[in-house]
């Protein structure tokens, strides 16, 4: 090998080392996490986040990689969950030799089967039409589930007992800790599998279909077939997530299939950032935490979700991952320091604006609440009474003032960015 090739090989090797290092670190983190945070609440949170990660990653096979926006992805998740519960009950009733750790695969098969069934028709059209169709199919399945009571258990759903299956390693999977490790295992396996998918010929062509389906035909591929296969994979992994949920809660009901669940995974993938593999992982963590945390402090947590989502769509459509990766050239060119001060300055009025918005929303929300506790809004430790006339005034001042000042400071941020990217370009870190 020539000398010129040696530095490239070195770079490839160190790149490979870093790559495997990240996966190894993730695995270690998953194992160690419940030992550091061992409370019951934490375990539940981690379990939910793990499931959400698999679900969001499966969704991104459609959105981020193949350019298919689906409003009905929960269908595969839910059907996977239902198949899992039925099989779990059958295993217990008929003494089949299937230990619990294999059940998520059953869920995957459930999701995959439905995807194979409807996928061909669904992927005939792409873009906005596909989105509408996915919404319709989602509603169709969710409504049908209430009619077919024998399969879906009506409003109550179908329950199961995860400890009734054959044990593996002597674990009964009764304790939440064991369930967490089961979920963590499947998170690793699924994430590795889905990442590997992006490195295959199919994965690359999916990206091509996303970017330019017309052109793809002229390099020999049928975009319809590509989308169909991607749809199948997305359904499979969504089904795994559904199976894990069924195991976690020992129940499957029609809410698993519904529009709320579909909206949730869309939020997670988009807020996290659909353009990068790790984006949905971030989004799943954030959205799950928000969901768990917000419901304790406010009655209108979903409204905040909506506002955050709108904010991301309008100002940061690349999601959190997009924002982070945007800074990568600056970090490499060491010009990041040029934008940090302007961020800090802009953070203050933006925070004020956010507080004003929160105060306004909470005022309206708690205005009609019962006297006493329900009426008091605790903002940074300062109590505001929702019915007092001063509160809306304060809120208005915060919102208007915050907005006006924030506009100026964000303009400064844009200028700082201009300077920083120029430096990065000069140093050769930007195209």
């Amino acid at each position, binding site marked *: 090998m020539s000398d010129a090739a040696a530095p490239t090989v070195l770079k490839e090797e160190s790149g490979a080392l870093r790559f495997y290092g990240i996966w190894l670190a993730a695995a270690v983190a998953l194992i160690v996490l419940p030992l550091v945070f061992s409370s019951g609440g934490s375990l539940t949170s981690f379990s939910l986040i793990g499931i959400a990660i698999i679900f969001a990653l499966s969704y991104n096979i459609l959105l981020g990689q193949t350019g298919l926006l689906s409003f009905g992805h929960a269908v595969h998740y839910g059907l996977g969950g239902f198949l899992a519960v039925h099989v779990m009950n059958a295993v217990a009733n008929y003494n089949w030799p299937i230990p619990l750790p294999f059940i998520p695969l059953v869920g995957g098969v459930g999701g995959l089967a439905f995807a194979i069934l409807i996928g061909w028709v669904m992927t005939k059209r792409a873009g906005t039409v596909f989105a509408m169709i996915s919404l319709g199919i989602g509603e169709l399945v969710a409504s049908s589930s209430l009619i077919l009571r024998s399969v879906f258990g009506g409003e109550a759903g179908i329950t199961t007992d995860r400890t009734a299956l054959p044990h593996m390693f002597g674990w009964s999977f009764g304790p939440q800790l064991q369930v967490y490790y089961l979920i963590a295992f499947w998170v690793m396996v699924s994430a590795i599998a889905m990442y*590997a*998918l992006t*490195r*295959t*010929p*199919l*994965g*690359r*062509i999916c*990206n*091509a279909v*996303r*970017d*330019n389906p*017309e*052109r*793809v*035909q*002229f*390099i*020999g*591929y*049928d975009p319809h*077939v*590509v989308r169909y*296969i991607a749809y199948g*994979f997305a359904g499979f992994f969504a089904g795994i997530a559904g199976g894990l949920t069924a195991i976690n809660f020992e129940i499957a009901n029609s809410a698993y299939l519904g529009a709320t669940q579909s909206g949730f995974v869309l939020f997670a993938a988009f807020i996290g950032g659909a*353009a990068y593999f790790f984006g949905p992982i971030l989004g799943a963590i954030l959205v799950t935490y928000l969901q768990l945390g917000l419901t304790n402090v406010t009655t209108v947590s979903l409204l905040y979700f909506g506002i955050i989502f709108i904010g991301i769509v309008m100002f940061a459509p690349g999601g959190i991952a997009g924002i982070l990766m945007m800074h990568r050239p600056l970090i490499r060119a060491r010009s990041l320091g040029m934008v940090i001060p302007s961020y800090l300055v802009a953070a203050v009025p933006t925070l004020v604006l956010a507080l004003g918005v929160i105060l306004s929303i909470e005022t309206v929300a708690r205005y009609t609440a019962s006297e006493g506790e329900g009426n008091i809004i605790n903002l940074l430790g300062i109590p505001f009474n929702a019915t007092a006339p001063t509160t809306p005034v304060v809120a208005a001042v915060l919102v208007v003032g915050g907005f006006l000042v924030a506009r100026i400071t964000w303009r400064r941020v844009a200028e700082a960015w201009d300077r920083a990217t120029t430096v990065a370009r000069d140093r050769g870190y930007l*195209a």
Partner: protein
Amino acid sequence: MTAAIEVRAVEKHFGNVSIIRDLNLNVAQGERHAIIGPNGAGKSTTFNLISGHIKPSSGEIRLNGNVISGLRPFEINRRGLSRSFQVTNVFARMTVWENVRCAVLWATGHRYAFWKNVDHLPEVKQRTAEILEDIHLSHRRDVPAGLLTYAEQRELEIGITIASGANVVMLDEPTAGMSHAETERAVALIRRLTEGRTLVIVEHDMSVVFGLADRISVLVYGHIIASGTPKEIRGNPKVREAYLGEEAH
């Protein structure tokens, strides 16, 4: 020997309007054939008809003797015909390397494989590297295609078109919008890359046409009014009239 492309009595109507009327075209194997004509004559429509983007209202199109009219674009592409686009049509978010590699994947037989690692396919790697060398974009291999200069994108477009190894290559105004120097480079590239293949090219730049083509067809109002060697076309009174508006009394 069977013609590479044979278009027989093809018509295309959109509602009441006839875009293409009784189109007849013959492109021999290994020939470099240029289609010229005034704006709106239907050149892009002709390309779209041959490449399967739209279906003829009547008539027949054959590729290497086999009927292709009515087939879908990817089916025609798999039978050995490849085309480029007038408006640059690359995969903007993928790098130059990945653009060319995608174009190579089907031809190297990897199709919809989801069990192989695309980075570990040596023949794919090699072929992609070769094509990048040919189109002089090796030094830009890691740049997202959307960030290339216009001329570079056009060259990448040509690269993607020939990457699949198709024997019949159709280029739709490949030098549109290029400067004189860029055009010269592009023409040299095209000449080199289409050695031994059949080339059909739509062009407005007459120097490119007369320098590159073995035979020229002139398309006016959806109908080929003349077809022959550059010399014959230059001397053809009907062509002069159509282009320059001279009345041939």
